[in-house]
């Protein structure tokens, strides 16, 4: 029995192509893992994509690193074809050096630094008081 729904969903696409993170099928565990993927905009996050362009592991490994991989040739191809990266993908690729650094990374870093500097003088004052 041929499934007709797949035939119906195949060719129509009013949306555009995006490069985004899709959760990679480990549904039962508390262990997220993302694939950097080129997919149509209207598709569900985890459903059929056009091509996988890399991966991102959000949990740090033994050496306290978060591993990211991406296929630069194919990303260039898709960007040339008019794909839009999402914010997290843009941030990751900015940190990697493939794109320019995303402004929000810089601003978040500045905010963190401001908070840390705000906290540190308070501690210094408290210690001085004590």
């Amino acid at each position, binding site marked *: 029995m041929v499934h007709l729904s797949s035939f119906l969903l195949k060719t129509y696409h009013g949306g555009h192509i995006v490069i985004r993170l899709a959760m990679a099928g480990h549904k039962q565990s508390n262990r997220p893992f993302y694939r950097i993927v080129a997919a149509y905009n209207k598709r569900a996050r985890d459903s059929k994509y056009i091509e996988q362009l890399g991966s991102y592991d959000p949990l740090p490994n033994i050496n306290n690193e978060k591993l990211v991989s991406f296929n630069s040739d194919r990303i260039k191809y898709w*960007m*040339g*074809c*008019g794909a839009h990266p999402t914010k997290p993908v843009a941030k990751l690729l900015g940190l990697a050096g493939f*794109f*320019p650094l995303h402004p929000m990374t810089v*601003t978040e870093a*500045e905010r963190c630094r401001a908070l840390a500097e705000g906290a540190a003088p308070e501690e210094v004052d408290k210690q001085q008081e004590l």
Partner: protein
Amino acid sequence: MFQVITRSTPVIRLLAPRGAVLVEAVRGRKTRNDPKAKSKEGRIKTPPPVDPVEMVVLRERFTEYDLIMRALRLEFKEEMLRKRYEEEVGSLAEERAKQEAEEHRSLMTWNQEENLRMLKIRELRVQKEVEAAEVKKTEAAILREQTMEIFVKEKGEEIMQIQEEAKSFINMENLDQRIEEALDNPKNYNFAIDKDGRVVKRTVLQ
């Protein structure tokens, strides 16, 4: 009032207090007609505060970022188009096309040669077959003639035999004589035979 019939009603849900909203965990648990929770009644949602200095800086950064991204996109597009163009029309493509054409030509010539060779072989084979068929035909003819000869000979012999036998036939002239002879010589066809095969011809005389 707020009870919504679910697809499957587990026992725990049925024991829940009245007036509670019984819906499965779906986005937008409450509709706009459901009352707000007591802890949230006076809440006014405000967006996070914006630092104007930071906002200015951010805006600048974003314009720069957008500019760079647009430029990058155009670069990538150009690269992709160039690659595609090279694939189809570039020097490598021409060489490949040439090589393929040469291969095709050589293969065609080889095919021609093969055809000629096979033709020759076929000619020889067909000739041999024809000769063999002719030989077979002649042999068959000879055989037929021979069989005819033998047949004719046999039939001739039979005729001779019958002619010889015809001499001892009973005609109108021999009739009386023969009758006399038959009456004079009574033949006794009676005999006795044993299980061991011993024949006894001597029987009671007439």
